[in-house]
């Protein structure tokens, strides 16, 4: 690796880290204002214009709070869990093509890399719940492990069927191959399964059983205060952002879109519009639906999502085979 690319990668890593915190702030603000307006109230209004500064202020306040570590808690793992939860959400942003130019490194196996790294989030949540020596946290941790395993499989299969269509695992190729037709048209069921499984992957309502507020007080976050709690929040928002970015890349044709006034940035802007549109739907779903019960969650994954994903994969493979036979 010559020095020029290492510098480029180093700068882009710093930019991505900055982007992650900026996205967490924007998403947090978006969520609280949207929640407010969904619920016929205003949401934060007091600080800055219409509460713009509310999320940074919350972050600084959490910085200033004392981080309590319970005596019987596993000290090392307790401190490591927030860091472990943040790292798997930083790495996938390296591979996601925001626009033809804006991509840190284009790996040939980008899709597999992203899905593999994403699974680490579950380990972090489990460590957090187990190590804080709190019954509610432990139950939240166990729930999150079972839930994420169950919902990882449909995501993999749907991603596989998209890779089958694009005949490549590189995210850039996938976006390129959607120039003619977005994959959402070819794979509507796949898109639905992906969004539902993605929602449950990042523990968002109506599948937010690991930190079910009414059952397990604060779930795996019960013992965390101060900066550790805010790290978990940032990890959750970034994980949500990655799920939406992946959905945009796989189904909504990445950065493709009609020309916008700022010609050279239009592709990145299109990408962000699509990603934040999907995030809006996630926030919308969170503030409307009640929480699913634990065994219903499991049944839904094993009895409905996985069979449908298998059927979808099979039909796609059949379609590609016939297409290959006819046209080449």
């Amino acid at each position, binding site marked *: 690796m010559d020095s020029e690319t290492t510098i480029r990668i180093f700068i882009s890593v710093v930019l991505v880290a900055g982007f992650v915190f900026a996205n967490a702030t924007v998403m947090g603000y978006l969520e*609280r204002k949207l929640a407010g307006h969904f619920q016929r109230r205003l949401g934060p209004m*007091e600080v800055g214009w219409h509460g713009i500064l509310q999320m940074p202020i919350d972050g600084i*306040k959490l910085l200033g709070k*004392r981080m309590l570590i319970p005596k019987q808690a596993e000290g090392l793992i307790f401190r490591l869990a927030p860091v472990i939860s943040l790292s798997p959400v930083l790495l996938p942003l390296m591979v996601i093509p925001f626009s033809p130019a804006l991509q840190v490194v284009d790996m040939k196996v980008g899709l597999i890399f992203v899905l593999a790294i994403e699974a680490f989030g579950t380990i972090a949540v489990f460590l957090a719940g187990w190590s804080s020596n709190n019954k509610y946290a432990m139950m939240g941790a166990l729930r999150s492990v079972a839930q994420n395993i169950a919902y990882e499989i449909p995501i993999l299969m749907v991603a596989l069927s998209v890779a089958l269509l694009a005949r490549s695992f590189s995210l850039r190729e996938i976006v390129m191959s959607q120039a003619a037709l977005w994959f959402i048209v070819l794979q509507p069921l796949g898109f639905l399964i992906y969004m539902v499984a993605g929602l449950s992957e990042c523990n968002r309502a109506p599948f937010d059983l690991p930190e079910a507020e009414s059952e397990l007080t*604060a779930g795996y976050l019960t013992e965390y205060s101060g900066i550790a709690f805010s790290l978990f929040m940032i990890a959750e928002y970034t994980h949500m952002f990655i799920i939406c970015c992946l959905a945009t890349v796989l189904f909504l044709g990445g950065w493709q879109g009609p020309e916008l006034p700022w010609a050279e940035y239009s592709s990145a802007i299109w990408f962000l519009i699509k990603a934040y549109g999907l995030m809006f739907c996630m926030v919308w779903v969170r503030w409307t639906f009640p929480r699913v019960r634990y065994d219903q969650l499991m049944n839904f994954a094993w009895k409905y999502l996985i069979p449908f994903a298998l059927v979808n994969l099979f039909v796609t493979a059949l379609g590609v085979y016939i297409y290959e036979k006819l046209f080449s």
Partner: protein
Amino acid sequence: MENPGQRQPGRPVSGTTLGAADPAQPDMDRGLWQPLRLAENILDACRANSLWPLTFGLSCCAIEMMSAGMARFDMARYGAEVFRPSPRQADLMIVAGTVNKKMAPVVKRLYEQMAEPKWVIALGNCAVSGGPFAGEGNYAVIEGVDKLIPVDVYVAGCPPRPEGLLEAIFTLQEKIIGRKHSFPQNRHPQQEENT
């Protein structure tokens, strides 16, 4: 209650250190600590504007606390929207209701579990002074929650109106940052600039 609007020298009065600048806390305005004064002010301003209350309703005042959080009175406008169930992440404990002898150790333990800096609002006559139950036949009700934990703001009323709780949050903000936080919608048109 020290006079509003005038900032106390020394550290902001957090839940535990009451009133006089206690010697252990360095005086921020002199010597080596001087540059940290700005950092302390910023932190105070952030703490004042994002007071996350603990879901801790005891009796009737809990209903008024809930309606203060709802759409009409909307505590969310002042950053107090997130009702955290776990004491670890809450930094404002609103004691809303009657504390009786069986509940006293629970209130104390909850207060100790909250992370510093933390504040307490005693909402309603029962939390302030035992309210209608503090009489000669009283064998179970603790007459005032300040017998258990240090209280920052008292709200009278049985139950106090949700505006009373909002006013308590403003008073607490003023106690933290020394400046009565302006409430744009409520400010009288003529006194636009004097806050």
